């Protein structure tokens, strides 16, 4: 599984334990460097209202599992992403609700206009603008149906803008596997978006 912590490795909600000072110093430096990135990642998936707690759990787990960090297997940030991804899975019902809310909120003109305004090149393509709202509904419903591992991969690629190597390091799988799984995810989403009218 590479450097990612397994589900049983994290100790969300546990009280901090006494550890050697170097682990805390290292993780505190990571927090300073990457705390915002992890917080925003968690907030995108679970909402800002959950981000503090889950982010704290990520770094708490990093302190407690610091000895398991393997620098050769990836960067501290990818390791922290891996921990966060595992913790987010525990909150799947929250993420599911958030996707449903997102489904409604993205139907607004504000979102479409905002995206088009700041990414004009996207709006110039022959996209399905006219039935975009309907497609978004079906797309988010299809994302809800993805396996958790696939959903993690999709979010890391699409929302966190990670490349295949980075996603591989985060999820503990080879980059080639990332590519093949992404292809399968794309196929699955396309089938569900286009087949169920």
């Amino acid at each position, binding site marked *: 599984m590479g450097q990612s912590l397994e589900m049983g490795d994290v100790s969300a909600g546990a009280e*901090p*334990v006494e550890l050697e000072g170097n682990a*805390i110093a290292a993780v505190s430096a990571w*927090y*300073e460097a990457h*705390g*915002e990135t992890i*917080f*925003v990642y968690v*907030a*995108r998936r679970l*909402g*800002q*209202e*959950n*981000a*503090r*707690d889950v*982010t*704290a759990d990520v*770094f708490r787990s990093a*302190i407690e599992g610091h000895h398991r960090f393997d620098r050769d297997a990836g960067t501290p940030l990818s390791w922290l992403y891996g921990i966060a991804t595992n913790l987010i899975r525990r909150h799947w019902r*929250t993420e599911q*609700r958030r996707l449903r809310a*997102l489904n*409604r*909120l*993205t*139907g*607004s*003109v*504000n979102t479409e*206009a*905002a995206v088009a*305004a*700041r*990414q*004009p*090149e*996207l709006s*110039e*393509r*022959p*996209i*399905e*603008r*006219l039935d975009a709202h309907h497609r*978004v*509904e079906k*797309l988010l*419903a299809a*994302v809800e149906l993805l396996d958790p591992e696939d959903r993690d991969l*999709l979010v890391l*690629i*699409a*929302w966190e803008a990670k490349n295949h190597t980075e996603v591989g390091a985060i999820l503990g799988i080879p980059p080639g596997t990332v590519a093949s799984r*992404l292809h399968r995810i*794309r196929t699955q*989403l*396309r089938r569900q978006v286009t087949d169920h009218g």
Partner: protein
Amino acid sequence: MDEIEQFARLRPSGIEFTEEDRAVIAGTLFESTRPGKASNRLRWLSAAAAVVGLAATGAWFTISTESATVDAGERPTSTSNIDEAATSTTGQSTATSTPVGGEQATSVEAAADTFRPPLMTVDRHDWTLEYAGFGGPDVEQRSILVDPELGLQGPVIELMTFPEGSGTGFQVETPVNLDGRRGSYVAFGETHWLGFTDDSGRQVTIHGWKVSKDDVVDAALAAIATSTSTENPLQQPIGRLVPADMDLLSAMGASATYSFGHASEGGTEINLYPGGEYTLQAKRFDPGEYEPIMINDEAAHIIDYSELYGSEGGEGRYRLSVVRDFWLWEIDAAHFSTRAEFLEFVDSIVIAESDLWYSALPDDLYGPDDLSDALTQMTSDIPLPDGLNIQSLVDQLNNGSPAWQHDDLIIATTRSIVCAWTHQLQQADANGDQTARRQAIDAILSTKSWAILNELAGSIGWSEAVWETADEVARLASAEDTTSSATTNEPFLSDGFFGCD
């Protein structure tokens, strides 16, 4: 655009990692885990203070719209920065032969801080309005420099700040050194774009038109130099250019979208963006796709997707961009047999007088005059908390879209009500008011019997999302009965999930 790209565009934005967030998390993690924690925390707080300039509300060039009172469909009342000639309403084409702007609906009192775009209609009986919505500010912060004599017709430098992670969207870019910070620059004709990331991670984009690359770089350096202060980086004149007034700033954040459906399978979306020619040039990231054409005697641009992409998604699709008055009209269409047929349709799009527009609304769209009756009927079996009534709901909705689809009205209404009850629950919990607490819990639990939520069930997920919250409240109430230690300080009740203010 494939499904992965489409999902990427749905990434939630506007998330802020505040100084308080940083400190609270650090406090829970490190204060109790080692000696010397205080100095560590102080270091974080210091780091946070260094970037607060751009992140804090009320920092430099945050837009205030207090004075932006305008008429429906008109340009801002303060026109010092807008070329008078460009705002002339004399007909430039047959499509604008209907009076531009029109009167504001007598039943719609535009909020003092709302800029309301024109109301559009299609003068053909086989097309029906399906959606109408107004957009608000599309950036976190905006500042504009213009020539006071020429307004947006002359040189312009616009500075926009987007939430962290938004990206610049540039397809081709050249690195630019901004006093040690990396910027990305790209130019199309007279249009310059420069983007960089500020100290708080937000994306700053500078758009220059009819200015030099050096002017744009100077604006970026000014923004960086003032990024930790409350000073507006573009508040000082640069050459002839002076800061735009609040009316123009407010108007530049507005937009409107209208969707029309054809009796058969056709569909058209009309988007209106403020800024006229300036905005048209800003949106042309790939000018090669735009083909100049004339519509009657009026210059316009068309993207012919049928020609460009053919069977790969382009068949029957067109986009027409035309500058009319203060507005850029962008018309997207699908399922047209030929370009000529599409252009014939374009000719039938007009700005409507508000009375006419509202009186012609289809039955399944609610206008301002319909809202009170519709909401009275919709909420007949729904308990409303103190302070929320039909009129206050109507007032909320009238500050948004000019017309509401049935489903969207249900969502907006139930969101407001559930948010109000949730707020009461949290307040009661904080104040120890058991009566108000019980009342709020009962109201939220009653959502499962609300007729409008049951009507929507099984279609778009909204009702189910509300009911999941009700289930959590039921769990909370159950815990309350058994342990008396339940709390409303739960994530599912926190502001944000339903878009509660």
